[in-house]
């Protein structure tokens, strides 16, 4: 990449047909009052880099932000275009035409799009919001800037994968099935071990088959076949006994109990959750109503709380939601098991062998009750049932089983034994299935634990890698901070990952020797913004050398002294970078014209924006007084006020350079002197000190013409400048004369020959300053 040469806009936001921001590889300070086109420049860069503009991401800007990006008064047939030219001749462009999808082009387009916008552009609001952001928000902002975004993505993907493995593997469902299977095993086998169950199967196998098979499952299968064969040989009466026995064994009590328990658990979890959620919403409503002062901490409940408490609260909420989810899974499983049991009961009840028995019961109470059982549609039941219907079916089942048990009591022992043994074999098969289920669950648990360990390992990697990068960046931040605030009251400024949190980054400082976990505890707004600027610049300095740095109104909350420090910092730390500095602070702009010198720096002024058709315009011949003149037509008061403000800024600089001594004043009054006071002092000192070389001679004479011009400016400033600043009527002609007089007075300090200021050089003797060619001089020792 090479440096920026020019950015040209056509019908883009505030720009009309052509607006050209020229850089020619230099660093540039651009001044413009609000709405003159500074942010349009930043927006254009953002669209080139990101393809869209972040602050236009809202419902009114259109599908492709065309309602915000395209000049509202673009003539039909015109095209909206942004073109960035680079010093190596390449360019990157974006064209926004119907159907408004931005079309990127240019030989440098891919390189420009690869810039990290967050490390290229810093806007004032972003500084404040960064420092104010939570640790988690800082983490999200900084991690990609540190080049560790891929690790965070990996950790998040592993976490999401673990959830999917759990869902897809049916872990919760299997855990529920295992619990049910273990309960069923207990019902048949009590607390018998696996070995004892196998022995039981072996005993049955020996009784019915008697061969030499050793595998319990094969033994069970062979014994079952033999039992079924013997049952097939039953007499009609025995078959009826057998069916009655099966009916008597069709117990749905356990399933109904489990279902009711799961239903109650689900209701409890849901009801409590809804109650709590409502309480939070009510608290939030009260919070919004009573919002004033500094009581803004917890965004959910509005209560002032510690981070630890908030974290514990969030964790408890997450656990409760997980419990609710588990209760739902458990309920679904219990309902399914219950439906299976009801189906089995219905099947046993409807057995052909029991037709006679059922008819015999036709007029009994049982027959009336089981009408409900006959009508029960199990597929409907699977979609849900109430506690009342569960109770009703359970009562019926109990009555049916009681009747079947009563009438099967007289069954021959052989029939009884066959039924019992068949039941044991079925239960044994289910127990073996439960073992397989347990193995699956253990495997899934192991996989989940592995993924959790992997996520932890990635987060450990983030901590390790960020640690070394933090050390380097923290050192840069501290160095930058020291230049902005040399008083050393704040030390050990550094980024760190808190030990008690995985997804957090914070800034810590040492304030007068005391460690502070957050700059928000002790630093003023101005200091916090200085810190934000230091952090941004430290990160920006890690970019490739030709990547530009754009600073948009970043000194708003800084006092004049610290703004001067920013200029020094740009000169000292970013001398090898192309910096575009945008400001709407005219005083600072004027100061920067003295502090940031050509050829490295250029200075440009935007004219006040007038209309969408005229668009963004730069001041051609750039002087600050020209800018004041730009207001003459529409706002003469403002023009006069501008002239006075220029003098307020220019004259203290001149007075300082010319060693003018003003009487000391108490408190802040020293900083509140007006330009008139400095001018009066310069006139007084200049009467003796300001000299001009006589024409055709090496002798000097008093520069009376200059003093006269200064006096003229002083008179007009007292008469018109001050009223202008307070809103009294100043007519256009008067304001024009004031501007001319002020410009002339300032102009006296610049040599007409060499164009250098009278303080350009110190002669080294006789306490004299002079311009480069020596035509004008200031003998400050004489004051």
């Amino acid at each position, binding site marked *: 990449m090479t440096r920026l040469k020019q950015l040209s806009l056509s019908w883009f936001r505030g720009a009309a047909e052509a607006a050209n921001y020229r850089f020619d590889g230099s660093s540039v300070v651009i001044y413009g009052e609000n709405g003159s086109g500074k942010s349009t420049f930043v927006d254009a860069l953002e669209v080139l880099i990101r393809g869209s503009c972040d602050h236009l991401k809202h419902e009114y800007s259109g599908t492709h932000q065309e309602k915000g990006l395209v000049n509202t008064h673009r003539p039909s047939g015109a095209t909206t275009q942004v073109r960035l030219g680079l010093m190596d001749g390449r360019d990157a462009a974006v064209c926004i035409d119907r159907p408004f999808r931005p079309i990127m082009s240019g030989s440098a387009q891919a390189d420009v799009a690869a810039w990290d916008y967050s490390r290229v552009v810093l806007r004032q609001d972003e500084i404040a919001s960064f420092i104010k952001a939570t640790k988690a928000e800082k983490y999200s902002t900084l991690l990609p800037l540190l080049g560790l975004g891929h690790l965070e993505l990996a950790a998040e993907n*592993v976490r999401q994968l673990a959830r999917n493995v759990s869902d897809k593997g049916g872990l919760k469902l299997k855990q529920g099935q295992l619990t049910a299977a273990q309960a069923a095993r207990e019902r048949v086998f009590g607390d018998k071990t696996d070995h004892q169950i196998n022995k039981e199967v072996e005993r049955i196998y020996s009784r019915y088959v008697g061969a030499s098979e050793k595998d319990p499952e094969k033994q069970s299968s062979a014994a079952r076949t033999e039992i079924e064969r013997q049952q097939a040989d039953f007499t009609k009466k025995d078959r009826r006994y057998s069916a009655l026995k099966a009916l008597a064994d069709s117990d749905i009590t356990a399933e109904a109990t489990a279902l009711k328990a799961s239903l109650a658990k689900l209701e409890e979890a849901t009801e409590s959750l809804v109650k709590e959620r409502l309480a939070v919403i009510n608290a939030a409503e009260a919070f919004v109503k009573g919002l004033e002062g500094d009581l803004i901490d917890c965004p959910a409940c509005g209560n002032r709380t510690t981070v630890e408490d908030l974290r514990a609260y969030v964790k408890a909420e997450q656990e409760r939601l997980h419990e609710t989810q588990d209760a739902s899974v458990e309920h679904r499983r219990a309902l399914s098991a219950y439906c299976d049991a009801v189906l089995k009961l219905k099947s046993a009840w409807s057995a052909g062998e029991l037709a006679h028995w059922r008819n015999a019961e036709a007029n009994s109470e049982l027959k009336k009750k089981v009408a409900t059982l006959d009508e029960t549609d199990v597929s409907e039941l699977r979609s849900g049932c109430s506690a009342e219907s569960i109770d009703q079916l359970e009562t019926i089942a109990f009555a049916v089983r009681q009747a079947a048990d009563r009438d099967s009591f007289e069954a021959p022992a052989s029939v009884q034994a066959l039924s019992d043994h068949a039941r044991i074999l079925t239960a044994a098969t289910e127990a073996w299935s439960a073992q397989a289920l347990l193995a699956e669950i253990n495997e899934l648990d192991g996989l989940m634990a*592995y993924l959790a*360990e992997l996520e932890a*390992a990635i987060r450990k*990697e983030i901590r390790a890698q960020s640690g070394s990068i933090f050390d380097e960046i923290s050192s840069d931040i501290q160095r930058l901070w020291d230049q902005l605030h040399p008083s050393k009251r704040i030390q050990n400024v550094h980024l760190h990952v808190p030990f008690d949190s995985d997804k957090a980054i914070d800034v810590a400082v040492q304030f007068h020797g005391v460690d502070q976990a957050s700059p928000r505890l002790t630093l003023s707004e101005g200091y916090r913004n200085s810190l934000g600027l230091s952090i941004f610049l430290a990160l920006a300095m890690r970019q490739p050398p030709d990547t530009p740095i754009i600073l948009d109104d970043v000194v708003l909350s800084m006092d004049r002294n610290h703004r001067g420090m920013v200029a020094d910092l740009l000169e000292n730390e970013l001398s090898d970078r192309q910096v575009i500095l945008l400001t709407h602070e005219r005083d600072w702009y004027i100061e920067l014209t003295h502090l940031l010198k050509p050829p490295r720096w250029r200075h440009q002024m935007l004219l006040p924006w007038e209309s969408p058709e005229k668009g963004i315009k730069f001041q051609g011949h750039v002087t600050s007084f020209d800018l004041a003149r730009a207001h003459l037509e529409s706002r003469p008061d403002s023009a006069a006020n501008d002239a006075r403000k220029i003098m307020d800024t220019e004259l203290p600089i001149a007075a300082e350079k010319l060693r003018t001594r003003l009487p000391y004043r108490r408190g802040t009054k020293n900083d509140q002197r007006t330009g008139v006071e400095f001018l009066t002092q310069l006139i007084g000192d200049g009467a003796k000190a300001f000299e001009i070389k006589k024409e055709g001679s090496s002798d000097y004479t008093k520069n009376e013409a200059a003093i006269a011009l200064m006096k003229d400016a002083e008179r007009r400033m007292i008469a018109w400048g001050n009223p202008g600043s307070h809103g009294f009527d100043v007519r256009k002609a008067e304001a024009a004369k004031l501007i001319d007089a002020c410009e002339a007075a300032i102009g006296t300090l610049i040599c007409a020959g060499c164009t250098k200021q009278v303080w350009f050089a110190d002669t080294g003797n006789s306490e004299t300053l002079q311009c480069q060619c020596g035509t004008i001089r200031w003998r400050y020792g004489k004051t």
Partner: protein
Amino acid sequence: MEADWITRCLSAASKKQQVDPRAARCVEDMLRADGACRKLSPAESARVATSILDALKPKSEPEPQTGDEAGAVE
């Protein structure tokens, strides 16, 4: 030569928790493809989960071919 971070993390995780190498391979494939470049969609993540679970399924014995399947001609 120092191992890359994916290898380091996979190795650290498997030291703490044994896992079937086939499952570990699926996770590694995910990380080396897009898993460390962008946030995977729920559907993509679900596909990886399915492939892991499939990898863990015991391979069933190939069924013996019947005479017909073995190439009997009608």
